[in-house]
């Protein structure tokens, strides 16, 4: 059974049909790409999947459970984590604290323990620090653990966002244009990181991307969106050679 399934998903903003009849089925462990021209509705699909928008129609199931119309927090707890197209870090917190916020729901103590600094506080904080450091190491951010997130260079901010998303221990990771604004070297590095994340965390990944090199390099399957509708779906090589897709991107 597929990990994520969306059937006949649709949403309208007033008279605008942003996404219409969207179907997707992502197997566990897949690296899936969602592409399409600007304004095709890719980020809207992400917002539907993560509960930022409630779909007007359709159903979404994660691991067999219906998560349609649930709140963002509940969907995160059900197992979907995401990054954002325009980076949204907690910029006045340190790098490690950003990751610790991601760990929030997995390790805890009561507010009283926190204020009175009971032994449990030190124990849990130590474990949180260790786990956060481990995640930072994966992304090569361990040396910057105490820097403010805002002071990180752009590429590392993107990585930190992925680390924070992974800290919530998701089943499915949604990456919204992870390579946006990166140079070819950084993109190459990012591709390796994404591959590594999949292997290391046994993660299922759905990503939006414009960089065709990245998409053709790592995605196994693609869905192409155009004007809110699915234009084409299937194996990466097949999709990228589809004349309809080329037409949508390049025009006639």
């Amino acid at each position, binding site marked *: 059974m597929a990990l994520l399934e969306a059937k006949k998903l649709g949403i309208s903003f007033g008279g605008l049909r942003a996404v219409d009849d969207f179907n997707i089925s992502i197997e566990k462990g897949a690296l899936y790409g969602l592409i399409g021209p600007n304004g095709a509705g890719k980020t809207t699909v992400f917002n539907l999947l*993560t509960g*930022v928008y409630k779909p007007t129609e359709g159903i979404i199931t994660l691991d067999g459970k219906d998560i349609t119309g649930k709140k*963002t*927090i509940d969907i*995160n*707890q059900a197992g979907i*984590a*995401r990054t*954002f197209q325009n980076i*949204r*870090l*907690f*910029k*006045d*917190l*340190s790098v*490690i*604290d*950003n990751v*610790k*916020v*991601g760990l*929030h*729901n997995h*390790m*805890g*103590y009561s*507010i009283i323990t*926190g*204020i*009175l*600094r009971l032994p449990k*506080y030190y124990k*849990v*904080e130590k474990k*949180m*620090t260790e786990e956060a*450091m481990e995640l930072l*190491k994966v992304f090569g951010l*361990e*040396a910057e*653990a*105490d820097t403010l997130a805002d002071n990180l260079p752009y590429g590392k901010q993107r990585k930190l966002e992925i680390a*924070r*998303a992974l*800290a*919530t221990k998701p089943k499915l990771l949604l990456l919204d244009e992870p390579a946006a604004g990166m140079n070819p070297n950084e993109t190459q590095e990012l591709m390796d990181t994404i591959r590594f994340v999949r292997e290391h965390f046994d993660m299922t990944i759905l990503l939006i991307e414009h960089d065709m090199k990245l998409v053709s390099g790592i995605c196994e399957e693609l869905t192409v969106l155009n004007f809110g509708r699915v234009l084409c779906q299937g194996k990466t090589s097949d999709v990228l050679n589809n004349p309809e897709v080329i037409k949508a991107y390049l025009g006639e």
Partner: protein
Amino acid sequence: MKKLSNKKMNKTFRDNLITYGMVIAAYVIMQILVSAGAVSSLIQGLLVPLCTYAILAVSLNLTVGILGELSLGHAGFMCIGAFTSAFFSKVMENTALPSGLRFFCALLIGALFAGIFGLLIGIPVLRLKGDYLAIVTLAFGEIIKNLVNILFVGLDENGFHISFTNTMDLNMSEDGQVIIKGAQGITGTPHDSNFTIGIVLLLVTLFIVLNLIHSRDGRAIMAIRDNTIAAESVGIHITKYKLMAFSISAALAGVAGVLYAHNLSTLTALPKNFGYNMSIMILVFVVLGGIGNIRGSIIASVILTLLPELLRGLNDYRMLIYSIVLIVMMLFNWAPKCIEWREKVAARFKSKKSVKKEAE
């Protein structure tokens, strides 16, 4: 790598110690000066209000600096703390309860009621953001003050009597006692607070706020401040943590109110002490001390409370100098050039220190 985060732990720990140490040092110096007779009675009378203002500034900084929401109703929560605790102390005045225990109970009651009101007001109000939130909290602060002004409560052998019109309406028996007399407030509150208690309460407030900031819950609160959408996406319960920060902040303002009420024999809700003037004054302490900077709040509240009194000899120029100091402090804390200059000086100081260390 482990060393790095250890270093950071140590740094926040050291920072907190400096803050506590500063308060304790100020207390010791003040006590020595008082016992040496070097402090005028005017300044001595200011010691407890100083603690009150410092507690208020620290607690408001939790809302403004850590939660990142502008609240202009802080004096309202102080008012609730002051009146509920003074009411309790007055009722309990002639019982067998020892005065220390009575004050402690009054403290808990003041904090509890202010916290509950913070929660109740927070539920509808925290849906708003920015200016709207400021306006609504301002209104709530005024409502609380005005409600207290028309509240009459009396006690006789039949129990409590409450009225919103006048004393006659209470229908009290002859030996009954009117405790809250509307605009005249509460008179004869036992004088339970002093400078030492004030400092202890300030330290407790600091302990709560600083430990909260550097805990899991504090991180969640600051994450909401920095980016609500991202905080939600990693599973942080926005409403819960907003309410938590807001009601803790309100409860601590209530503590300041308890301290304030038990330092005065007559407690009335005037625009001067519980109105928006007060709320804005606390906000000035917070902004000048640095938003999110707890130690700065204390320093700013002390300087800005003492200054007008110390300048009393200059009569006409007093407020002029006060306003100039306000502007200078504002520039020193917030002007980008000034921040740059401060960083440069700090860096030079640091490098000198490390050179010295190496030489040794």
